[in-house]
């Protein structure tokens, strides 16, 4: 009895020893800063860019101002477009990879994973090299005589969406692959034996069974796309700002911390909803 009590005490000590440092770090340097931003979002901006500690909901009301609302709307639109394009391109690719024989399958999979480990700035810069006024695309088109004047590709929603798909497509392919790889293809044959054509057997059998992978992939693309900062910063201009750029602008240029905080919190709400869907309906084994 006494021994078990002391052992329990020992366990408790061990638990706190293991738990405290990391939990403290997360609590103090992650959660607390977020809570401060949440509180700031209800304060008032002073005349000199300082923060006045007076409660208000004006910062959130201001989000409905057409200028800012448009930025939110455009971000959502670009993130959704990015997700849809990634799905339409990624599903057939994941299917293709899953149907290959080894070692081909692993090689193709590795080729999707490599961009994961590659610096995001460098990859975005590679797109800039293509799209610049004096970039590769314009040089080739002019060289072929297709166009006389260089096209304005950079600083358009197209460039940003292209960059987002380029950046996050691997996030779509991997969970889809995991889902399709587990899929039992004899079910397709069963459906076809029972008279379903190829398209129908895909829609009624394969699609529902790989749905967790689809949900996971879509959310894993949507979340970083809606919160993007680097891509719209480098490939978009003042006209194609996203929520991330608005946040940065409010904090560093406009010096309006309370409004910047409100923007940031709104972004977090959108992301949290997406994350909730992910954990509820997505592929369980992936994170």
């Amino acid at each position, binding site marked *: 009895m006494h021994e078990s009590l002391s052992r329990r005490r020992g366990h408790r000590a*061990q*638990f706190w020893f293991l*738990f405290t*440092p*990391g939990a403290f*770090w*997360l*609590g103090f*340097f*992650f959660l*607390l800063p*977020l809570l*401060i*931003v949440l509180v700031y979002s209800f304060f008032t901006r002073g005349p000199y860019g300082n923060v006045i500690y007076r409660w208000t909901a004006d910062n959130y009301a201001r989000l409905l101002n057409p200028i800012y609302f448009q930025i939110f709307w455009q971000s959502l639109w670009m993130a959704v477009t990015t997700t849809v394009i990634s799905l339409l*391109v990624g599903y*057939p690719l994941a299917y*293709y990879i899953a*149907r290959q024989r080894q070692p081909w399958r692993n090689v193709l999979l*590795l080729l*999707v*994973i490599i961009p994961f*480990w*590659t*610096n995001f*700035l*460098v990859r975005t*810069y*590679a*797109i*800039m*090299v*293509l799209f610049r006024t*004096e*970039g*590769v695309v314009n040089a080739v088109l*002019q060289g072929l005589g297709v166009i006389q004047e260089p096209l304005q590709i950079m600083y358009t929603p197209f460039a940003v969406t292209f960059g987002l798909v*380029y950046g996050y497509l691997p996030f779509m392919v991997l969970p889809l692959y995991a889902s399709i790889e587990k899929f*039992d*293809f*004899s079910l*397709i*044959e069963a459906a*076809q034996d029972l008279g379903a054509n*190829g398209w129908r057997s895909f829609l009624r059998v394969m699609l529902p069974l790989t749905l967790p992978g689809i949900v996971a992939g879509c959310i894993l693309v949507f*979340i*970083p796309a809606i*919160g*993007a*900062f680097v891509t719209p910063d480098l490939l978009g201009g003042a006209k194609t700002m996203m929520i991330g750029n608005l*946040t*940065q602008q409010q904090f560093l*240029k406009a010096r309006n911390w309370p409004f*910047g*905080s409100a923007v*940031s919190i709104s*972004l*977090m709400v959108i*992301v*949290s909803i997406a994350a909730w869907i992910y954990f509820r309906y997505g592929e369980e084994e992936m*994170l």
Partner: protein
Amino acid sequence: MALEATTVERPLATQPPPAAGTRGAAARWLLGLNALLVYTFLYAPILILVILSFNASRNVSVWRGFTLDWYRSLLAGAGTLGLYGDTGTVAQDTAELARNFQASGIVLALRNSLIVSFSATAISTVFGTMIALALHRYRFRFKGTFQTLLALPVVIPDITMGISLLVFFSLLFRLLENLLGLRMALGFATIIIGHVAFNVSYVAIVVRARLAGMDRTLEEAAQDLGANEWQTFRRVTLPLIMPGVLGGALLAFTLSLDDFVITFFTAGVGSSTLPLFVYGMIRFTVTPAINAVSTLMLLASMVLVLLSLAIQRRG
């Protein structure tokens, strides 16, 4: 009585579905075409970048022959290229950054990056592994809530985390100055703190996954044979979860080395990392030297990929 041995045919799952005539062939051809296009899409931009880094011409449309000049210019003192070195104070905007150009070379930025990445990786690997062990071994109140908190840094946008750290540090520094008269500024410490704050989660999640697949009876056997807690951990648990720990550490190192956004908001004078340096180059200059830096960074990524594969194979 002898049972008739029948070899059960493996279902056709591992074989391609029977081609349904020409339509099946067409579908397969389209799938192959799609794959080809996607891989071109993923790799052509990178490949072009690498080729251009050896181009003697400044102009991307003309090939003037092979050169290593851009690589030399990097080492010769990138400061002369008008690169941006140090980020200013808390309140910095891109225009201010542009004005803040300082002769700080790529070597310095790389050194800063390595200091940050190694420190952040060491701290987050130790703390992350400890958290994973605590979660694996113990049930406690609010465990579910804590696990949600642990997953948050993985999901939350970089920009939100960067901004909140900026707000936090400016508030903390003001408090420290008013209460204790301590003057502090953004720098290595704040960057490392920020990096650990997201890396702890990644390490904990990776190690936790490894622990979930571990055979607990091995630890019990060690203790039955008289090993104490520490010996059990050192001789049994740690070797078993080592692939997870190494994998988590490598992931943390890569994330830390590549991070731009959170570093952007937590860096101070003299602590610019390589991504900040590259961002400055991309944003404010148009020298082909950027292609050379990019190629070197791509090369480093390949090394990290191979390392991670080696670790996975061991695990």
